[in-house]
């Protein structure tokens, strides 16, 4: 029986766990969209009205709303639902059960991460369909099957990068019990420098050029731009290469931390 046997089962088990609480599943969707989009709506409406323009940095107000409706969905798909889980497992000793299983801990966790991401595709498509039905697609959007496929591929790469970044940070829990603040800092950096709060097009051009080579924009902005059809094929390929390179760097850091940290594990609580 090959590796894919248990990976598939971990994957399907995780999906079953997530849909066990369907009320929570759809509430998360509603609250995330409502909270994010309502703030963006009033803020940007004021900005557009004040400047008396219809297009800013290549975005219409309509296009910006499409961007903001996708942000919480895409961010959730990339970050998964298990942020802080590994650190918590090290802290309270739940890691023990994974150390007993004859499988790779990170493959197990990554299968959970992918399951957590994929289930939110349903929410992303639901959000897009609702937006399209109510408001129609913005004039500047070139969204089509190809751009969506490019976006999904970008989300896959970004999810891998995010998994390695978060794991590297969470493994610090082997040395320092509580790493929640560090995880929040990464989330904050992604929000600010990754295009969650403001699309990167609104940053000064120099900043935008620098941010292109940092990992943050690939954890939010880049996949959204892909889906919206604002990225050329060359830019997409470049983006995937940069994402892959950062993923490689953080994978090495994660492996190093695991090799060192696991000997410090004390398995408290049993």
């Amino acid at each position, binding site marked *: *029986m090959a590796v894919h*046997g*248990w990976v*598939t*089962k*971990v994957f399907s*088990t995780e999906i*079953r*766990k997530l849909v*066990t*609480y369907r009320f929570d599943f759809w509430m998360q969707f509603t609250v995330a969209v409502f909270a994010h989009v309502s703030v963006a709506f009033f803020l940007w409406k004021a900005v557009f009205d004040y400047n008396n323009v219809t297009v800013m940095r290549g975005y219409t107000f309509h296009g910006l709303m499409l961007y903001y409706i996708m942000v919480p969905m895409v961010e959730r798909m990339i970050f998964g639902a298990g942020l802080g889980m590994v650190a918590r497992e090290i802290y309270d*000793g*739940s890691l*023990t*059960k994974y*150390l*007993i*299983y*004859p*499988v790779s801990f990170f493959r197990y966790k990554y299968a959970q991460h992918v399951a957590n991401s994929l289930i939110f595709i349903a929410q992303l498509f639901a959000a897009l369909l609702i937006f399209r039905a109510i408001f129609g697609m913005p004039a500047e959007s070139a969204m089509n099957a190809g751009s969506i496929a490019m976006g999904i591929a970008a989300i896959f790469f970004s999810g891998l990068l995010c998994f390695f970044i978060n794991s590297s940070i969470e493994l610090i829990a082997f040395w320092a019990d509580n790493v929640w603040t560090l995880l929040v800092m990464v989330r904050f950096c992604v929000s600010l420098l990754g295009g969650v709060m403001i699309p990167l097009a609104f940053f000064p051009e120099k900043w935008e050029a620098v941010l292109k080579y940092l990992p943050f924009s690939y954890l939010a902005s880049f996949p959204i731009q892909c889906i919206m059809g604002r990225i050329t094929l060359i830019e997409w390929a470049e983006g995937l290469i940069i994402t892959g390179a950062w993923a490689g760097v953080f994978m090495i850091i994660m492996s190093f931390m695991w090799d060192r940290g696991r*000997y410090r*594990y*004390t*398995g408290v*609580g*049993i």
Partner: protein
Amino acid sequence: MIKTNRISKIFRVHVKEPGLYGSVKSLFSRNWIEKNAVHDVTISIGEGEIVGLVGANGAGKTTLVKMLSGIISPSSGSATVLGYNPWDRHNDFRRQIALIMGQKAQLWWDLPAEDCFILLKEIYRIPENTYNENLAYLTETLNVKDQLNIQIRRLSLGERMKMELIAALLHDPRVVFLDEPTIGLDLTAQRSIRRFLLNYRQKNRPAMIVTSHYMEDIEQLCKRIIILRHGSVVYDGELSGVSRGFADHRIISVTFNDDNAAAGLKIPERLGTVMTSSQGIVEIKVRRESIAEAASFILKRKGVNDLTIKEEDIGNIIESIIRES
């Protein structure tokens, strides 16, 4: 099957002064102490053996189990389990062991037990036939067939523990570590789990290490015990040998014709002390070397109907060993 050679584990523990001042102070400077959880332990356990690991809280039982199952690594010394170094966590090693922790649930809280078992079947690469046979045997013996499709979190503590046992034994482990398997369970559930473990051991012959604070677990499951005190082994041998090695007293139980005769029994201090006296039966704790003299003294009293000499309760002996400082 399991061998350790002078294995030790030292934990570095942060000590904080109590109160707000202590908390603030610990932000700037911390005091650390080294705790010798396991010290120079050398043991050997063979195939099919079931060994009780006994000791007070903090004696090092669980730390030793954690090292042997590969969860933590030792500070010094070496160990092999099934020929593997446990903390290398080789997959072939992990496929042949099981760890059951009474205080820590390992199954997925939100899933029905059967879903968890199917996942474990894939993780441990259990062939379909073996899985079906084992699941049928384990669920029937533990009488939980009807609970297989209920979410783990909705099961009673006893049922959950039974599911944990099934999950741990589905892959026919050759070494089973049981850390307090009956903790928190009512008497019926405790008995049923003990009965199951005895049957399972007879059928499958794995090596088993059991830690428990319940003497009944140890007495009924284990022929051999290892007593740990402050991380070191103070006894390793037959359970029955504990009395011979450590009990310097025996109990003489005397039955009198009536309560007055019983109440009138006065034992010289040099021979022993009366432990209980009720309904005409007196129990006297006597030093081993004084047994003959004490029995002869008692038999000369009036109204003696019966006299029996027995070993001190093994639980009490073990307790006195593990509490001794």
